[in-house]
């Protein structure tokens, strides 16, 4: 199969006809360059989208309350719905193993001081499950646990940046931090992939917060994740049922959209995956479009080359070249030019991305890049593309009749 002489013939022909080789190579290089950059940009957009959601589990459901907008069962509109511990327990009991993790949330803002440092942070009073819902990663110490809840301990878990702000390069774990004048023991420090704001939060047990802020059993919000084995439709009907039961429990009209609000992340996730899918399709269409344009371009140039080389091909045939050897010459030349030029285009594309990639983050394009498998795939595609591009011209060349080619006039 490997015929050194054939390759020598081809290299000579490429080398001796540099202009036309460059010309045909340029088309392909440009097409691949374009493809690489487009592909990477699309990849970057996708990265941005998926990043926006790494913070929360994809199977999360958030339950919030508000005021009623419709009168119902003799109750007036404008009534305020307030969740309490019993509502949290109700959801937990009622839905059993459909619920994976569940937590209440109470929101406050606190003024935190340690020695001479002080700053204001959002406070979240939660159940232990909250750690898994928010994908909080413990860096040292531990998270809020059941014991904290049972005993209303004055324990807090603080974000990495809270430690950095207030403890200035010293270990916060085990120290006491002052929140609105009350000292709490730091039992854990966490970090979070969701960005800086997520690392400037303080967590405390929900029961402690209820005791200290108003001595009631109010909660602001209930977060849960549904059983991950549920599919999209099951997840949706679960949240529909949840909404219905809660509205019933608080005597809220069916069509009241504000009193109890259940947000199911599955919908968002589905929208994102559909968007990603759409984006992938667009990439593929654009990618194949440019690739086909490249193939057509090189094919045209190769046909032109064959026309230009008609006489030479006639001479070769008169000297005993078989049709197969003529096909090989044209086909391999086409593949070679396509592959080399395409590779150059790819390298330039990757180079451009390296250079401008980081500055694109402002435009929602994060880490634009092409994977190794794509590079390998593209190389294979280029070889195939070269073969397709060369096929017609090669066929044309092999059909050239030597007498026609050699006619003197």
């Amino acid at each position, binding site marked *: 199969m490997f015929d*050194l*002489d054939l390759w*020598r*013939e081809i290299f*000579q*022909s490429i080398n*001796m*006809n540099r202009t036309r080789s460059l010309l045909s190579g340029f088309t392909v290089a440009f097409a691949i360059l374009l493809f690489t950059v487009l592909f990477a940009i699309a990849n970057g957009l996708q990265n941005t989208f998926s990043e926006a959601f790494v913070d929360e589990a994809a199977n999360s459901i958030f339950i919030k309350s508000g005021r009623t907008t419709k009168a119902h069962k003799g109750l007036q509109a404008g009534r305020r719905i307030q969740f309490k511990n019993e509502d949290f327990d109700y959801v937990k009991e009622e839905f059993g193993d459909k619920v994976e993790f569940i937590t209440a949330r109470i929101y406050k803002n606190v003024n935190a001081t340690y020695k001479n440092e002080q700053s204001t942070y959002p406070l979240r009073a939660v159940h232990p499950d909250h750690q898994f819902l928010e994908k909080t990663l413990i860096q040292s110490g531990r998270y809020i646990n059941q014991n904290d809840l049972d005993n209303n301990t004055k324990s807090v878990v603080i974000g990495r940046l809270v430690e950095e702000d207030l403890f200035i390069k010293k270990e916060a774990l085990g120290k006491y931090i002052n929140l609105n004048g009350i000292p709490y023991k730091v039992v854990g420090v966490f970090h979070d992939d969701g960005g800086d704001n997520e690392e400037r939060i303080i967590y405390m047990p929900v029961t402690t917060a209820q005791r200290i802020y108003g001595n009631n059993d109010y909660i602001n919000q209930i977060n849960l994740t549904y059983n991950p084995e549920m599919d999209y439709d099951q997840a949706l009907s679960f949240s529909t049922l949840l909404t219905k039961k809660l509205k019933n429990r608080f005597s809220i009209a069916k069509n009241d959209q504000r009193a109890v609000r259940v947000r199911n992340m599955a919908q968002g996730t589905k929208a994102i995956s559909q968007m990603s899918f759409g984006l992938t399709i667009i990439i593929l269409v654009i990618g194949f479009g440019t690739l086909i344009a490249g193939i057509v371009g090189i094919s045209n140039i190769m046909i032109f080359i064959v026309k230009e080389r008609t*006489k*030479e091909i*006639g*001479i*070769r*045939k*008169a*000297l*005993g*070249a*078989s*049709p*197969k*050897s003529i096909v090989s010459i044209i086909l391999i030349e086409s593949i070679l030019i396509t592959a080399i030029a395409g590779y150059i285009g790819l390298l330039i594309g990757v180079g451009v991305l390296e250079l401008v990639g980081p500055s694109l983050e402002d435009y929602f394009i994060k880490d634009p890049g092409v994977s190794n498998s794509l590079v390998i795939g593209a190389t294979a595609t280029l070889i195939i593309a070269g073969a397709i591009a060369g096929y017609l011209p090669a066929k044309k060349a*092999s059909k050239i*009749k*030597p*007498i026609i080619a*050699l006619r*003197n006039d």
Partner: protein
Amino acid sequence: MLKINQLHKSYAIGDSSLHVLKGIDLSVDKGEMVAIMGSSGSGKSTLLNIIGMLDEADSGDYILDELPIKDLTEKKAAVYRNRFLGFIFQSFNLINYKTAVENVALPLYYQGMKRKERHELAMFHLGKVGLADWAKHLPKELSGGQKQRVAIARALAANPKLLLADEPTGALDTKTSHEIMEFIQSLNDEGKTILMVTHEEDIANMCKRIVRLRDGVIMEDKRVEQIRAEQYV
């Protein structure tokens, strides 16, 4: 060596057809040197191309060295051309980006000969036409006569049974023509069978036999006293 019987050939031109060869009978023995003559458009090249398997006859028989040449596949025709035939053209038909020696080696490449061997053989033939020193030159650096010598060396490289020349001196001045003819005569002296198309009487008279075409048939076929070219050189 070669026997042709009732050979016909016509070309389609638009709706009508041009009957170029209307029943040619011709046989050539080994070692002959034949000139094919006739006015322009009389079908000389057509006949030579059919003999050279570059074109196909419509009807009639053609036997080359006891091998019937009929309905050849492209592949087979390529092999026959390579093994049996050497071509010399009026316009030389060298490949312009290949050096003299590479041009001469090309038929050997298509024979599947190894690179080193074919280079040596090509150099030998270049030496025979007196161009060993020009081996590395491209065709554009050679004179017309030198180009035709390279073409002759190429035609000889594969040691063909039959040498076909279509107006080999048509593009050359008289002096160079005579030099080329002298060389072709020496090849014939060594026993090579040669068929040559020409429309120049003095060139034809340097062959041993003249076949005249007119209106698609052989009008005259006679042996002549060969005029040696060296006396003019």
